[in-house]
């Protein structure tokens, strides 16, 4: 199929439909409005349903209902809206219901701004709602990667019976790039025999719940979830390791910032500084193993984020004290420039020498 020039948000939506999405419940918020707008146009054409909810809270609970009903369902929002959806996300994770969530994130806290941000790393990877749970979090760095991850997300959600989040940012959502829509990679998910469809007189009634008042019962549920998360951590890690051989400094960046980091690596090469990049594609599960074999040449690992330092916690866990972990970040909707990052790298490596 020929490439088409598509805006990130429309590409998310088109890819979701490619991935089997038939139901969408959402609420307007910048900078992701092209997603619900696209869905409102396209879902009725395939016998699906788009519904604008009265709030983000209602939207995620409609997602919960549609997922209970056995449907492939999605919602999208941006940072403060995702914060409101955490109640439902915790319920979905608890009841082991599949769904896809797209966060076209912006700078915060509070209502913050509408320019791109990556300060939702904690909210996404630490379980933004209550309780011990995880959602799979994918961070695309281009519109092409966004469509591939989104189309595959429904299969993964069904396979693990777990919510899957695509964490983009305002930049990925708003920009246009050439994309090629591809067919999703099919997983062998079990049939949804647990879904609420009415018994039809064919089976005993199904119940979907998260209440468990007996500590031992609830612990059993927690352990079952934990076992699932362990499998996901083992099998679903995705990352890109770029130019690591002989690197004096390794940048760690995801999404929009990782693209800039690649430009930084070129700029540093011109200054005779060898730099590499570890780009997590899955933020949860985090690619700790990507840090197992750091080159002997590496003097520093530097997390670069559009936040004042959230992913750096995982980078520190991964590096585990072997080399210093440094940081450069911009916030408020500012995107770090290659020049700023180069400057910071020179400062770090210069400091190491003196």
């Amino acid at each position, binding site marked *: 199929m020929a490439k088409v020039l598509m805006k990130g948000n429309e590409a998310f939506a088109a890819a979701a439909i490619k991935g089997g999405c038939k*139901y969408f*419940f959402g609420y307007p918020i910048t900078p992701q409005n092209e997603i619900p707008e696209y869905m409102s146009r396209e879902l009725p054409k395939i016998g699906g*349903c788009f*519904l604008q*909810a*009265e*709030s983000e*809270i*209602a*939207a995620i*609970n*409609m*997602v*919960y*209902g*549609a*997922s*209970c*009903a*056995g*449907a492939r*369902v999605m919602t999208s929002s941006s940072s403060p809206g995702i914060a409101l959806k955490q*109640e*439902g996300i915790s*319920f979905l994770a608890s*009841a082991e219901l599949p769904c896809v969530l797209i966060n076209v994130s912006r700078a915060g806290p509070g209502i913050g701004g509408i320019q791109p941000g990556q300060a939702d790393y904690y909210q996404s990877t630490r379980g933004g709602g209550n309780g011990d749970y995880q959602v799979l979090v994918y961070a695309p760095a281009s519109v092409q990667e966004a469509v591939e991850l989104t189309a595959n997300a429904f299969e993964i959600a069904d396979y693990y019976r777990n919510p899957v989040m695509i964490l983009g940012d305002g930049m990925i959502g708003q920009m246009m790039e050439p994309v090629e829509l591809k067919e999703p990679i099919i997983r062998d998910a079990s049939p949804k025999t647990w879904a*609420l*469809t*009415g*018994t*039809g*007189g064919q089976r005993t*009634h*199904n*119940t*979907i*719940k*998260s*209440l468990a008042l007996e500590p031992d019962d609830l612990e059993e549920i927690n352990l079952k979830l934990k076992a699932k998360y362990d499998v996901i951590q083992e099998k679903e890690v995705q990352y890109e390791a770029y130019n690591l051989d002989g690197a004096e400094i390794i940048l760690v960046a995801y999404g929009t910032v990782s693209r800039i980091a690649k430009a930084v690596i070129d700029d540093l090469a011109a200054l005779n500084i060898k730099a590499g990049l570890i780009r997590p594609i899955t933020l949860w599960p985090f690619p700790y193993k990507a840090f197992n074999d750091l080159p002997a040449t590496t003097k520093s690992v530097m997390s670069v984020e559009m936040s004042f330092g959230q992913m750096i916690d995982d980078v520190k866990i991964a590096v585990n004290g072997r080399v210093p972990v440094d940081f450069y970040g911009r916030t408020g909707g500012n995107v770090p420039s290659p020049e700023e990052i180069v400057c910071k790298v020179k400062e770090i490596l210069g400091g190491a020498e003196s």
Partner: protein
Amino acid sequence: MTVVFKKSVGLTDTEQHYCPGCTHGITHRLVAEALEELNVLDETIGVSPVGCSILAHKYFAIDMCEAAHGRAPAVATGLKRVHPDKVVFTYQGDGDLASIGTAEIIHAAHRGENFTTIFINNAIYGMTGGQMAPTTLVGQIATTAPKGRDPKHCGFPLKVSEMLATIEGAVYVERVSVDTPANIRKAKKAVKKAFEIQLSGEGFSFVEILSTCPTNWGMNPKDSMEWLKENMIPYYPLGNLKKPQEAR
């Protein structure tokens, strides 16, 4: 031996956890009987709330899920949009529906969602231990209104049925009570009517059932029934507030 009475096959054999004298048992039975008589038990999906009836899914022999506090109408919306040919209902108490879930119930009605809501109004928070609800009567004692509800401090009790009846998409709104056998029979008719309206695809149907909470009211079951009749019915008058032909 001749069977003169049996419980609805819409109910399971699980022992219910409700307090002695609580009317949830009665209202569960009315819902199950109505669905059984309409022959749709196998085609029904229910949503239980947060509150005393969160465990309703253990007592109804039908497909059900729990919803987060107040969100049952949003969950039911998702279910019904996927399965428009199934019967969908929410069963919600007054803390769930009239307080934290007001946005969800109003907008489900506003969209004319074709499902049924059974609203249990017992003028108090039951499961959490007797706190004041939006529906708690003026002067009524609650654990968070130790001197009785003072309207100057926290407003007058909310009349949910009257409010919903103003919404175009709500096609059937009726308030009933389960304080006497006669009223229970009327309540059953209303519940059945609500499901019939859903089956005919006419839109959102809503039955408010005035109920008792002897434990948190601090009364015995008999006095509770009396209290309901003398205090709740005058403020929450029984009867139909809206029928399909009145809806545009």
